[in-house]
């Protein structure tokens, strides 16, 4: 599904990613953990195609195709989805209109016509129920005045609507109380299948109790320095990151 080879990326000439190698296969859940400033969100943004970052070395392959030169929307059309750590507030664009536009533009890119209104409504109803989202919420301006939990549920709602092949959840657990966390995790688990993959980026092990990863990677100073199974997350939770730093420096 996703293969990242020796990826180096920088912003305003400051190197952030310094040689990432990662392979994610269909059906897998990968967790990327690491302390603040290690490059986790940068990795997510670079995969999603944020233009401020410059890839200086290496490449990103999605289903065998190099996506380095593709615009963010083209990556989305190929099935990349990024759940934002800080979803952007957009006054004047309703949640419904936003998601309709996103779906129809993605269909257009694939040479399909607009989704029939009836199907769209049905899908919106199903997916909003999955995320326990109130209907009234859907006519509000996108993320404007939403609580932290509402913003994250809205992100996963969009993921549910867009049915991506590769979903990257950037700190989706931050700002969530335990009920919201459960709803979000439940949503993600329901969307998981053998044909798609999920990358969970998180500080804490908490979310991984609900979305159980097949692999855990530790990102430190722009590199993946350790990989393991889900037990690695527990170890990090108990011991912090210092022992890994020592291991790396040794």
């Amino acid at each position: 599904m996703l293969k990242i080879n020796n990826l180096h990326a920088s912003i305003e000439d400051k190197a952030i990613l310094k040689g990432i190698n990662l392979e994610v296969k269909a059906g897998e859940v990968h967790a990327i953990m690491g302390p603040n400033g290690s490059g986790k969100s940068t990795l997510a943004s670079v995969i999603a195609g944020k233009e401020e970052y410059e890839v200086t070395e290496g490449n990103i392959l999605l289903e065998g195709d190099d996506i380095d030169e593709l615009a963010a929307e083209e990556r989305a059309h190929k099935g990349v989805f990024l759940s934002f750590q800080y979803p952007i507030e957009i006054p004047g664009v309703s949640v419904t209109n936003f998601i309709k536009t996103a779906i129809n533009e993605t269909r257009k890119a694939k040479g399909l016509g607009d989704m029939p209104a009836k199907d769209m409504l049905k899908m919106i109803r199903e997916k909003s129920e999955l995320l326990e989202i109130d209907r009234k919420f859907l006519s509000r301006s996108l993320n404007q005045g939403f609580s932290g939990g509402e913003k994250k549920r809205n992100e996963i709602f969009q993921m549910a609507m867009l049915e991506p092949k590769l979903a990257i959840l950037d700190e989706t657990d931050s700002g969530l109380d335990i009920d919201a966390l459960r709803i979000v995790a439940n949503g993600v688990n329901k969307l998981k299948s053998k044909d798609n993959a999920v990358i969970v980026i998180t500080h804490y092990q908490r979310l991984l109790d609900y979305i159980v990863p097949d692999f855990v990677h530790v990102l430190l100073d722009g590199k993946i320095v350790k990989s393991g199974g889900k037990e690695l997350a527990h170890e990090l939770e108990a011991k912090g990151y210092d022992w890994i730093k020592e291991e790396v420096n040794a």
Partner: protein
Amino acid sequence: MSLKEKLVSSFMAFEDTVDVHSSVHDIRTEAIKTFEAEGFPSKRQEDWKYTSLNSILKHDYSVFPKHDNDIEFKDVKKYFIHDIDAYKIIFIDGKYASHLSQTTHDGLDVCLMSAALTKPKYKVIIDNYFNKIAKKDGLSSLNTAFSMEGAYINIPKNKVVEKPIQIIHFSTGNEAAVMLQPRNLIVVNENSHVQIIERHQSLTDNPVLTNSVTEIFANKRAIVDYYKIQNDRQTASLIDNTFINQKQESLAKVHTFSFGGKLIRNNLEFYQNGERIDSTMKGITIIGDKQHVDHNTLVHHIEPNCESHQDYKGIFDDSSTGVFNGKVVVEKLAQKTNAFQANNNILISDKASINTKPQLEIFADDVKCSHGCTIGQLDESAMFYLRSRGIPEKEARALLMFAFSNNVLDSVKIPEIKNRITKIIANKLGVNIGFDL
């Protein structure tokens, strides 16, 4: 011969041919003198500092275009809000086009200025209202001197006019270039309600200059909803002079949607002669290329307990230029005035520019007056958010631009107008997406 000389020298001949009330003759003769003295405005005048008429005055305009009614409804249907039942007062090259119009005298007058200016039964109204609030500057005086045709609307007391009234001025450009001087008079009496849609549209690429004057009288508790749709070809220019006189407890709202045209200057003035009056003026301007749109507004608060609301949004691409000059005068007597003014702008390109200037002259001490103007760019993080969901760059930009301006549409009471404006915006931004209201 300059355009000014041409106009002044043709006035006498013109005046001999028209058969208007003698009082109107006097007004027109006075007006041509004012125009002769003042001429067209220049950038030396404070109010015209950022708008130069030089490029549009250089054409050799035909001042009295030939009569041509050879236009069928199907050719111009798209310029009508045709999905509503409406009265229609339609002109082609300044002449009334009866085959495209639907006027009435049944309980209200929705008809022609030429009739009002000549027929004895309208003389009282003309004497009471004609040229009473139009400014006596060069441009309005020029229009007054040549005023002959336009819409005449008189709504008697206690009448809610259900059907909106559409006023459309077409120009065919059958001659090389035309200058038009449409003149509208609208009198809305006590407790009455009227909705009006105005549009100027050229049908060819020959230059057109329209210098329009509209006088509106909203008497006690009257409600006037006025919509100006400015989406003309980029060879057509418009100077719109609209003056509104309001009596107590009346409500007047003017929405101005400016997307087309080469140069547009909107002079929009409200005079509040009574208490508890509400004046609202809103606008969306979205232009590109070398287009220029100038909104010059005035609200004159004369008596206590009145409100005014101004909200203009502007989006400027390419080398387009915008001007917003919003003047609010609060007289000493006008205590408890609430006056709000907002002008927010987005510059899409490095070459686009906007000059925005609020002007508050407040002589009363117990008032609430606020004003704010902003100039910004599209939010790049919002762009990435939209694009990461599969919305391409152009569509994402359009969506953000529409979102930026769409609260102006909240106060549009006719859904068909909302839909039409939305479509014009999508078209202007080159996208095919529904913005959903």
